[in-house]
């Protein structure tokens, strides 16, 4: 097998551009997904069944259907409905955030519910309101427990952003496929793509590890 490094060099500027877009998609997905996920997670925990139902349905849909399908639905269906034309980058960010929000909501809920009930009761006895108790007592402790599963979710999100190639959002995987289409080579484009994703995900897990250590109380 002759491995053609020169072809990779030809595509290097495009891979660089693709990497920037992948980072953009992932960061946007993480930011919007986390904010939305927190809201949905809290919504699902509301005691009133009718109020929590929409949040429940949201999670059921986005967790129960493939992201691939969601991307196609949002790109060819939802986005044109609002803007009148297809927009690959918008659709990719939307699909990734909406999808991640469903998982993140469950992570938040699990984190919050893992905190002993006595903590809330104690905070309330001290005269805090429910919201105050949440903000100052429950959430800070829950947040620490959520870091490992959240990190997991972020890494999954970065990797799943590669599915945006199908709607021609020019991220890393898109250029990998373009390179394969041009030269009909398998190893050169996809090994390069794999290495780039690995570098991104490794950097993220390094950061998350440091954060986890900093917050550890033991």
């Amino acid at each position, binding site marked *: 097998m002759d491995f053609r490094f020169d072809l990779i060099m030809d595509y290097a500027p495009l891979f660089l551009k693709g990497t920037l877009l992948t980072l953009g998609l992932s960061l946007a997905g993480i930011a919007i997904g986390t904010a939305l996920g927190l809201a949905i997670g809290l919504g699902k925990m509301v005691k009133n069944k009718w109020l929590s139902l929409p949040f429940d349905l949201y999670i059921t849909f986005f967790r129960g259907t493939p992201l691939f399908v969601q991307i196609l639905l949002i790109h*060819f269906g939802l986005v044109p409905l609002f803007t009148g034309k*297809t927009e690959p980058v918008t659709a990719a960010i939307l699909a990734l955030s909406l999808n991640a929000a469903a998982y993140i909501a469950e992570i938040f809920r699990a984190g919050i519910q893992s905190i002993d009930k006595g903590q809330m009761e104690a905070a309330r006895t001290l005269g805090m309101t429910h919201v105050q108790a949440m903000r100052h007592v429950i959430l800070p402790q829950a947040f620490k427990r959520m870091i490992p599963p959240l990190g997991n979710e972020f890494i999954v999100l970065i990797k799943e952003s590669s599915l945006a190639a199908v709607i021609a959002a020019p991220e890393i995987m898109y250029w990998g*496929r373009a390179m394969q289409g041009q030269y009909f080579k398998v190893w050169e484009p996809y090994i390069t793509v794999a290495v780039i994703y690995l570098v991104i995900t490794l950097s993220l897990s390094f950061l998350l590890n440091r954060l986890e250590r900093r917050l550890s109380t033991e």
Partner: protein
Amino acid sequence: MKKLSLLSFLLVFSMLLAACGTSDQNNGSDEGASEEKKTLRVVTDAAYAPFEYMDGDKIVGFDVDFVNAVAKEAGYEADIVHVGWEPVFVEIEDKIADFAVSAITINDERKESYDFSHAYFLSTNKILVPEGSDIKSAADLKDKVVAVQNGTTGQEAIESVLGENNPNIKKFENTVLAIMELKGGGADAVVADNTVVEEYAKNNPDDKFVVVEDPDAFAAEYYGLMFPKDSELKAEINEAINTIYENGTYAEIYKEWFGSEPDLEDLKAQQ
């Protein structure tokens, strides 16, 4: 102890892999040997109506009927498998399949890596645009967003106008997705083989698409069956192709799918 078990696991795993590898190769060389009424593995990307597409779970199309007729003439059975566009090239390069049929244009670049049968179809790339668009020729596509299928001659044709990897060229998995992008408004035009875009415009009058041709910018192309380099099968298949040209089978299939007579003289002139 732990290390040892990991090592033995790796060993077993690599042996398994090696075993898979050799059995594949055996299959490959078996297919080279001539045996009566052998089944050929023919690979395709069945998302290119009317050449090859899925009708329910069956692959149908002009290419399918053509290959079945040719294989029958040469004394083989053809097992046509839908693998996707790029895997088609991988399978032929690695000699996993016997040959490929997928409306594949014969060009010099591909000839370096693969062998082709005699030309069996004449095609040109054309431009699909919405009705009332100001695009009248290939030159008008400058500064426009154009959707194509990744790795096709349609992509090459438009790259010859806009430049390689121009960000205004959107490359999709297949032509259907490219056309949907045009429909969704994310692209101004689609460049693809004439039969596909004409068929689409004809079958979907509600979309209000028209086909623009520019024979000066996009040259005529010929489709061929694609073989691994130095395939022994090629000569037999070429002979069978000429036979069905002569005995009228080809014209019959052509008329069934396209409703007109093929230009056999032109196809034969390419041999």
